């Protein structure tokens, strides 16, 4: 259960990270982000990753927790990467 919660936090983190990219931000939210907004997105995303780490470790212990967390990060990053680049809304170019 905690692993799934951690995974969703990772997904959230990578959505936020993805939105710091000018192009993706414009496609999904209609305008380019300013510097301050990007910084806030980055902080929020990092926070979500850290939270995911503790949530996962709380559920699975300090041996398996970090291992599963690493897996969660990669899976989430991959899924978000695919959705950002291939979801219909991104059919711009």
């Amino acid at each position, binding site marked *: 259960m905690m692993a799934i919660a951690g995974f969703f936090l990772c997904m959230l983190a990578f959505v936020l*990270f993805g939105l710091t*990219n000018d192009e993706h931000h414009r496609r999904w939210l209609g305008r380019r982000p300013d510097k301050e907004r990007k910084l806030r997105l980055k902080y929020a995303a990092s926070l979500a990753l850290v939270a995911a780490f503790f949530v996962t470790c709380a559920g699975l212990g300090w041996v398996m927790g970090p291992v*599963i967390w690493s*897996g969660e990060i990669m899976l989430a990053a991959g899924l978000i*990467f695919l959705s950002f680049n291939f979801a219909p809304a991104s059919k711009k170019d």
Partner: protein
Amino acid sequence: MSKNFRQSQAFLHTWSGLLLGWLLFAIFVAGTIAFAREGLNRWMRPELPRVEEPMKVVAGAQAFLQKKAPDAKSWYISVPSQQSFGAQLFWVPQPKEGEGPRGRRGGRRDNQALIGGDGQVVNARETRGGEFFYRFHFDLHYMPVIWARWLVGFATMMMLVAILSGVVTHKKIFKDFFTLRRNKGQRSWLDGHNATAVLALPFHLMITYTGLVTLMAMLMPWAVVANYTEPNKIYDVLFPQGEVAERTGEAAPLVNIAQLMRDGEKRLGGPIGSVQVSEPGDTAARITMSRGAETMLSTRTPSLTYDGVTGKLLWQSPPPGGAAVTAGVMVGLHAGRFAEAGLRWIYFLCGVAGSLMVGSGLVLWIVKRREKLPDPMRPYFGFRLVEKLNVAVVGGFPLGIAVMFWANRLLPVEMAGRAQWEIHCLFIAWGGALVAALIQPARQIWTGLFAGTGGLLLALPFYNMLATHRGLPASILAGDGMFVAIDATLLVSGMAFLWVAVRVARYTPPVRRVKGQRKGTKPQGTVASVPVAETPVLAEAEA
């Protein structure tokens, strides 16, 4: 300075990646498939019943061994889980007069058996199953193991160099994290290569580094040589064992192993992975059990030794030292034996990403150089060599695997050397791909190989439905997740290969590279396939 450093790293990345890239591709693909080792062990023996109660299998194993080899020197039983295809056993007969204790080598083939889920000896089709991919991953095939391991070790070292230099070379690793420019030729290839590398970077670093650790005693033996004058001493330290008792010659019945295992499981804190019995049927009988690697991160699992007649605990392995645990955890992380379904999928997908990374890197070498060819109709020798090898390996190896899966299904059960012939089929098909790549234009062969691989993979689940009682619907109804997962993976990868083949075939090479020319002329792709799908860029010259 910084620019020069990056340039030098780019050079290093290019050549460390290319020179052993083809070998790395095969290693990576086989390793990825080896994450489904247990699953394939079952999938490649569809006639075997599923293991429902592991203890029943152990009891069957003991009954079989007591009948077959009552006075053996030792028995070895691999304890099955519900994921395994059964329990593999082997026994070592008493050494004959004048024969050393190690005189048993080579005779193991006749001294082994397989106990199925119903506790009976089974005669399944002869196959290496998933073990082939696991072994090929570091032992390769058709060559002495020691050469293979040096080759694999060297390739792994190059991989580590390529990954680290790649990180330095990649200018905007965070800024471009989410960037994928599609249908832009070389740019798309680079983005695809970067995406597969960066998204799974923690995995790539981990798997390469821990891969070296698995071979460390061979690659860097000096620490052992310097600290242990007697070669056997290090094994005693790393793999401690209880004292071996001498055979007394007095017969005594062996305790029930399955029952004793319950005590062992309690003491070791998890399921037992293997049981070894020395001098069964004698008053000096000893039963040693080790915890299974599926429930621990470290592969250095603890063990216990019991008196085989009374069932009294005699010995417990001491807690391993820090270095041994470190190495054990690294090997454990590499092999992922502890990974349950969800994490195993992540391992597998990361492996797929890694295979795509190596494959797209190899193709990128060609794509980059094609644009700069002085005469595209007459590329220089090195260019042609790399291009042909790319086709033969990146296109040919997957075809070989698909053919091997079919051989597993179609070769007659009574065929002599059947297991070996399954593997020969892989290499025959792969060799055929190489020959075809040498004599035909690259583009046609890319299309043919991908289409062939896709068709073969896609057809397999349908064949399973018709010819075995373990088709996809039956597996779903039986709740047999492993068979469902493998058949579904075959379907998906078959479709992916076919889709790539279609894209390669439909590709119309630009007459001259003009910016924006190919805009909107091609169907949308997926990240996994973009690099491959763009392949024909390399084939312009022949087209």
